C-alpha cells in the first residue's frame, strides 16, 4: 500500500524495512533471455540463449571470458553487464599483475558484490540492472556463483536466470543426483536440456542462438560455433 511513497530513490527504506529500488533492479534479470550454470566435481558449464531483435539483426552476446580461468553469463541490462565485465577483467588482470597468480573466483565475485552494494547506498546512483552467473575453475576447484544488484552473491551447483528460468531450475532440481559425477559432455547436455525447458511451445534451440562455455582444470573456454553444432548433432 505504501510502496509508491518509498520507492522513488534507492536511499529510502520502506516502513517494512525494504529498499524497493533495489528490488525493482532485481526484476531486470527476468527480462533477459535464459542463462544457466551448472557445476560438477570437475567442471563448470555456462550456457545461454542469445536473443536477436529480428532476422536482420545479430545475436546479443551473453557469455564473456573474464580471465583464462573464469567467465560470466549475463541476464538483464546488457550494457550494465558489459560494464561489470570490464570491471571484472581489470580486477582479474590486476590480481595477476600484483600476485602473479589467477584471482580466486570467490574473491572476484565478492569484490563485485561490494561494488554492487555501493550503488544501493549512494544518493543519485542506481543499482546495476543485471545479474551475472560467474563460473570458473581455480585452485579450490570448479566454482559457480550468482550475483545480483542488491550486492548479495550466492554459490550454486546449478542456477538459472532470465525469462522462464524457473523451469530450468526445476529441471536441475529433478536431475540433481546426476550433476556431481557428470563428465564434461554430460554436463553440457544437462545445461542444454535445462535451456530447452524454458522455451515457449513453438520455439527451439538453434546452434546460432546458443552460447556455451566450459571451465575446467585446463581453463575457461567459450565453445566455437562448430563445437556447439557438434553438441547439437551428437
Amino acid at each position, binding site marked *: 500500500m505504501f510502496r509508491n511513497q518509498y520507492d522513488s530513490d534507492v536511499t529510502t527504506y520502506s516502513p517494512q524495512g525494504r529498499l524497493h529500488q533495489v528490488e525493482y533492479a532485481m526484476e531486470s534479470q527476468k527480462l533477459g533471455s535464459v542463462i544457466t550454470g551448472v557445476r560438477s566435481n570437475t567442471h563448470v558449464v555456462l550456457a545461454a540463449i542469445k536473443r536477436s531483435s529480428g532476422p536482420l539483426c545479430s545475436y546479443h552476446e551473453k557469455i564473456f*571470458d573474464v580471465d583464462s580461468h573464469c567467465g560470466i553469463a549475463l541476464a538483464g541490462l546488457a550494457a550494465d553487464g558489459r560494464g561489470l565485465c570490464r570491471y571484472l*577483467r581489470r580486477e582479474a*588482470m590486476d590480481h*595477476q*599483475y600484483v600476485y602473479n597468480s589467477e584471482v580466486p573466483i570467490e574473491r572476484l565475485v565478492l569484490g563485485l558484490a561490494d561494488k554492487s552494494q555501493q550503488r544501493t547506498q549512494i544518493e543519485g546512483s542506481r543499482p546495476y540492472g543485471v545479474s551475472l552467473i560467474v563460473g570458473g575453475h581455480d585452485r579450490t576447484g570448479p566454482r559457480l556463483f550468482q550475483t545480483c544488484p542488491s550486492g548479495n552473491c550466492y554459490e550454486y551447483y546449478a542456477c538459472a536466470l532470465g525469462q522462464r528460468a524457473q523451469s530450468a531450475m526445476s529441471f536441475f532440481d529433478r536431475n540433481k543426483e546426476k550433476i556431481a559425477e557428470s563428465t564434461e559432455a554430460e554436463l553440457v547436455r544437462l545445461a542444454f536440456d535445462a535451456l530447452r525447458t524454458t522455451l515457449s511451445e513453438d520455439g527451439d534451440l538453434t546452434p546460432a542462438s546458443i552460447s556455451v562455455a566450459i571451465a575446467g582444470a585446463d581453463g575457461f573456454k567459450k565453445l566455437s560455433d562448430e563445437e556447439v553444432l557438434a553438441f547439437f548433432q551428437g
Partner: protein
Amino acid sequence: MSSQFEPYTDNGGTVIAVAGEDFVIIAGDTRLTQNSYCIASRNVSKVAKITDDIFIASAGMQADIFTLQKNLLLHSKQFKQDTGADISLSAFSQYLGNTLYGRRFFPYYTFNIVGGIKPDGTTGIFEYDAVGNFQEYKCSCAGSAASLMFPLLDSQMKGRKTPIPFDEALGLVKDAITSAGERDIHTGDFVKIHVLRRGQAPEETTFELKQD
C-alpha cells in the same frame, strides 16, 4: 664525496633475431651479470612470448626488462579481450614504441627486438632504442655483444637478393651467439632460440654456451 643513488644497472647479455620469408628466429642468451664481473644467474630468459606470432627479446637491466615485458603481456591480453583478436605485429610494435617514449625522461633501460609474423603471413623484425625509436629490419641484435654480432650479421644479410633460407638463418644465429659468447664476458651459459613460423605454434630450443 658521497655517491648519488644510481637507478640503473646493466645485467648484460645479448639478443638476436633473423627473419626469413616465412619464419622468424629470435634468440637470447640466459646469463645475467651484476657489477661487471658477478654472475647473478645462468638461466634467466630474455625472450618473452606475446602471442604465437609475436616475440620480444630484450637486453639491458633485468628489472626493467621484466617489468616492461610483463606490462606488454598484460596489455596484449587486454587488447584481445577488448577487440576479440590477438594484437597484430604492427600494433604491438607501435605500442612498444609509445610505451618506451612515455618514459622519455626516466627510460626503461632496455634494448628491445620484436620479431613476428604479420597477419598477411610476411615476417618482420623491429629494433628499438631505449626511448622508443624503432625501425623494421630483416635482422638485428642488441645487448652487450651487439657490436660483435652486427658485423657478422651484415656480412651475411646485407645485399641479399633472396630471403635467407631457414637452415642458413639458424646456423647464422647460433654462430653469432657462440662467437659472442667466446669474447664477451657477459654473454654465455645457455641460449634460448625461438622459431616462429606462419600458421604454426612457436618452437623453443636451448643450446649451451661456455660457462666461463
